[in-house]
């Protein structure tokens, strides 16, 4: 029997039982579609987070005061001492290192902003002009502290704040009051929306010294550092760490994180999550495979007389096996392809519904979904096929 005839014969059988075949294909298709859509969701979430992180720059090193580990490496912790502050002088010291391209010390807090008879609470960020290139932020109007004017009381308003206080768009050059101090508005940030859960549209930025006075602190919240080259991020991290230990009289009381490492961790977690949901979806494929097996077994017992006849007209046992196997393959392949189309359509609808989420199914998920479905179909067809081929022809023919 030629392969073409074999495939045609099995296809005839499948189309002769349309309802039954449709239901099996549906089960297969839903399984494959589930794999594709769930991985699209998981990978979309991963892409989303990675993009968010990347928008802050990839050569980024973050220094925070205190040790992240609670291990005994820091004797102060045992003695109940608070870690030494990370000061502005520390930041300037680190800034002189050869690997550092730019750095921006950071203090954050909340204060009341009042101007033109309006009053509201705003998040404030104290930093230097370097924050703009480091965090890829842009100004819509004006400028922020030149180096020479670092100590003057200047302020940059977030786009939304500027709109609220100065709807006429004449904010630059106005005087505003933040807490108990007066500032000159020198710039307005471009609309950037939310990034890493922090909305720069509703933020005001002031020079770091003013922020520290306003917030009554000498310790930095963070120190952001951009290295010169992406590939020397590890050595830069080590150099910064050593410089700070040295400045802190040999005490290791800061935490230095490469932004990439955070990114890599998120990437890993979300990849694992994607694999997890894919695994759950694959279970539905296994169930579909069992369904195929069940239906094929019923088919063998329904078609016992036919199998007897095939044997009587001289069909070898192996050809009978192929006939049943081909049916299972037809069902699972067409089901898998339908599922592929369904899954791609579903992912497309997801992307339409949530434009922020890049819900593209990863390539491996497309292949894995289809491959597992076809494999499940073949495995499921094996047992019925063997059973059919083993039937005793005389017994089979006597059944009507």
């Amino acid at each position: 029997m030629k392969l073409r005839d074999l495939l045609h014969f099995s296809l005839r059988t499948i189309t002769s039982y349309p309802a039954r075949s449709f239901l099996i294909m549906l089960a297969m298709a839903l399984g494959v579609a589930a794999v594709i859509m769930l991985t699209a969701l998981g990978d979309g979430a991963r892409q989303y987070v990675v993009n968010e992180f990347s928008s802050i720059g990839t050569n980024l090193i973050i220094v925070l005061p205190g040790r992240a580990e609670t291990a005994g490496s820091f004797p102060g912790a045992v003695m109940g001492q608070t870690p030494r502050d990370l000061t502005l002088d520390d930041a300037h010291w680190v800034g002189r290192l050869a690997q550092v391209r730019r750095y921006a010390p950071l203090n954050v807090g909340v204060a009341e902003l009042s101007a033109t008879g309006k009053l509201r609470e705003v998040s404030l960020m104290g930093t230097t002009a370097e924050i703009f290139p480091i965090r890829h932020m842009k100004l819509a109007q004006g400028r922020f502290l030149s180096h020479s004017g670092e100590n003057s009381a200047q302020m940059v308003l977030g786009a939304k704040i500027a709109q609220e206080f100065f709807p006429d768009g004449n904010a630059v050059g106005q005087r505003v009051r933040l807490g108990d101090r007066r500032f000159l508005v020198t710039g307005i940030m471009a609309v950037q929306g939310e990034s890493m859960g922090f909305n720069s549209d509703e933020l005001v930025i002031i020079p770091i010294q003013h922020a520290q006075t306003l917030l009554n602190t000498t310790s930095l919240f963070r120190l952001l550092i951009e290295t010169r080259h992406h590939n020397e991020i590890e050595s830069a991290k080590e150099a910064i760490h050593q410089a700070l230990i040295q400045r802190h009289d040999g005490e290791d009381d800061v935490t230095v994180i490469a932004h990439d490492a955070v990114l890599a961790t998120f990437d890993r977690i979300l990849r694992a999550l994607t694999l997890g949901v894919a695994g759950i979806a694959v279970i539905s494929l296994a169930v579909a495979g069992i369904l195929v097996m069940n239906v094929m077994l019923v088919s063998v017992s329904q078609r016992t007389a036919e199998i007897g006849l095939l044997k009587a007209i001289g069909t070898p046992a192996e050809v009978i096996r192929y006939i049943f196997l081909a049916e299972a393959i037809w069902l699972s392949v067409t089901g898998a392809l339908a599922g592929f189309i369904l899954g791609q359509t579903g992912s497309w609808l997801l992307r339409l519904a949530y434009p922020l989420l890049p819900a593209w199914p990863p390539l491996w998920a497309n292949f894995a979904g289809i491959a597992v479905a076809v494999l499940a179909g073949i495995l499921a067809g094996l047992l019925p096929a063997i059973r059919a081929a083993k039937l005793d022809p005389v017994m089979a023919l006597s059944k009507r």
Partner: protein
Amino acid sequence: MIQLSGITRIFHMGDQAIHALDHIDLTIESGEYVSIMGPSGSGKSTLLNVIGLLDRPDSGHYLLDGRNVTDLSETEQAQVRREKIGFIFQSFHLIPRLTAAENIELPLILTGMPPADRKTRIMETMQAFNLSDRAHHRPAELSGGQRQRVAIARATILRPTALLADEPTGNLDHRIGSEVAALLEALNQTGTTLIVVTHDRELGSRAQRRIAMRDGRIDADER
């Protein structure tokens, strides 16, 4: 030529052994027309199944056209069935979802014949069996006589040397039954060995050689 010697087939029912065939010795020449008759359980169908290589004897030898076919593997036996033997059944055994033409096509597909050749061969055969206008009908849409004609066309399309019919007229009324018998006899006239197993005395007596069976043995063998 079919040569059986010492063919024994035993079925076990609980702890009881039933000799369906009990040391059968039988020779049927090529082109003979033989009827096998006997009561139920006399072993006549089992004999036909053994001759058609559907059933293996427990002992004895079977030579088909001089070749020992008793010990062939299952695949080899399938090939012998395909090439040398045609079966006709009481219940026709047509595949219900296939058309008449597709049912007749099955043996040709098994040989791997190209589709174009199959088509001409089927057309010729359907014409010969007066089924041309029924080619695209399914078995359910055919009369009993037409169904048996389709089954005979399928059994003979590869021109087997022996045609084995088990109660070929059992499901047909008298008039159609004798038409089918005449058709089988016409095929026998062209040189095909015809072996008919039947209860029907009238059909059995039409054969030149009439074998009667009882309890797994040959009771009478008249020519």
